[in-house]
């Protein structure tokens, strides 16, 4: 994550376009509360989006998605409680009106995708890398014949 931040920030990677749909951002606890990367996390999200809408409590004081502390890998036994306690995150997301939720964490993303189904949020949860890989400018010499491959995004 930090690496992506630096690449984007220093212009090593350039974007051909930003995400136009409204986005919001999850603050995964391993990145933010335990990783100390709240500001960079947000900065990446802002660099990637045209219409970034922060959640309530964005940053170090954000709520956990409900999938932390081993809740996702615990599997079935935890599922019910996981959906229930995720209600707070679901409401936070809904309140932003975002259509894309940027989630730089594997654990959170599974949880937020489940929440999307459970609470009908009508959102898409994506990793930073997904967006960067799709929207970045690939230098000419690296592009094979079918040039518009990248444009699908």
């Amino acid at each position, binding site marked *: 994550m930090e690496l992506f931040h630096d690449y984007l920030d220093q212009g090593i990677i350039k974007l051909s376009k930003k995400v136009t749909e409204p986005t919001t951002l999850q603050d995964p606890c391993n990145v933010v*509360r*335990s*990783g*100390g990367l*709240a500001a960079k996390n947000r900065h990446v999200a802002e660099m990637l989006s045209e219409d970034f809408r922060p959640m309530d409590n964005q940053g*170090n*004081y954000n709520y956990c998605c409900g999938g932390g502390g081993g809740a996702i890998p615990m599997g079935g036994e935890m599922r019910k409680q996981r959906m229930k306690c995720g209600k707070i995150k679901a409401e936070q997301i809904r309140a932003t009106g975002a259509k894309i939720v940027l989630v730089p964490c594997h654990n959170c993303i599974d949880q937020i995708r489940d929440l999307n189904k459970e609470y009908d949020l009508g959102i898409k949860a994506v990793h930073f890398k997904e967006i960067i890989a799709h929207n970045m400018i690939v230098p000419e010499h690296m592009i094979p014949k079918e040039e518009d491959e990248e444009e699908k995004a």
Partner: protein
Amino acid sequence: MDVLALAEGPLLWISLGVFAVGLVTRAALFLVESREKDKIFWQHFKWKWVLATMAKWLVPANRTVAKDPVFCALAYAFHFCLIVAPIWCLPHIIYWETSRLAWSFTALPDGLADWMTLAVLAIAVYLLIRRLSSPDLRYLSTASDYVLLVITALPFLTAYLSVHQSLGTGNLLGDNMQLIHILTGELMLVVVPFTKLSHAVLFFFSRAATAVEFGRREYSI
């Protein structure tokens, strides 16, 4: 020796001693034990995080204040009055002046000390009502939470009653209010090191420990 002399003399010194030695011991034990068992705390120790957290919490400059301003305002006022009033009220200073130590320092104006005492009492009542009326706090609270609140409030109640002779004279309570005040004050001093009231010093250690823990992750709480 009559009871009042006993309470004013030896008992007071004993309870002050228990209070002071007790708190210093708590602090020392914390340091010793954490050196042994909480190595991580010392490995990452930085004054920067400790000072930052104290700056946020010794004055109301933290997120909890924003979350619950009423409770926090009252809680800060409670602690402020609770510490300041007994140290700088005139009767206590007179006691020190006439004691062997012959300490003397400027007192709070009487009126102010009175108001502070009333504030402590009013807030104690608020805390009690809050504890009784909230299902959360009822669930969390044990008997000691109620008892300690009463123990903390009693010296202030009796101080007020004794200074103003509110209960008049010629009755058992009214005549002995000063004695009761001294005894309840001593009781409070004695229980501090052994109960949750030890947060008087452990507040600093606990906050410091957690601030270092979070500071290790590069931000201050």
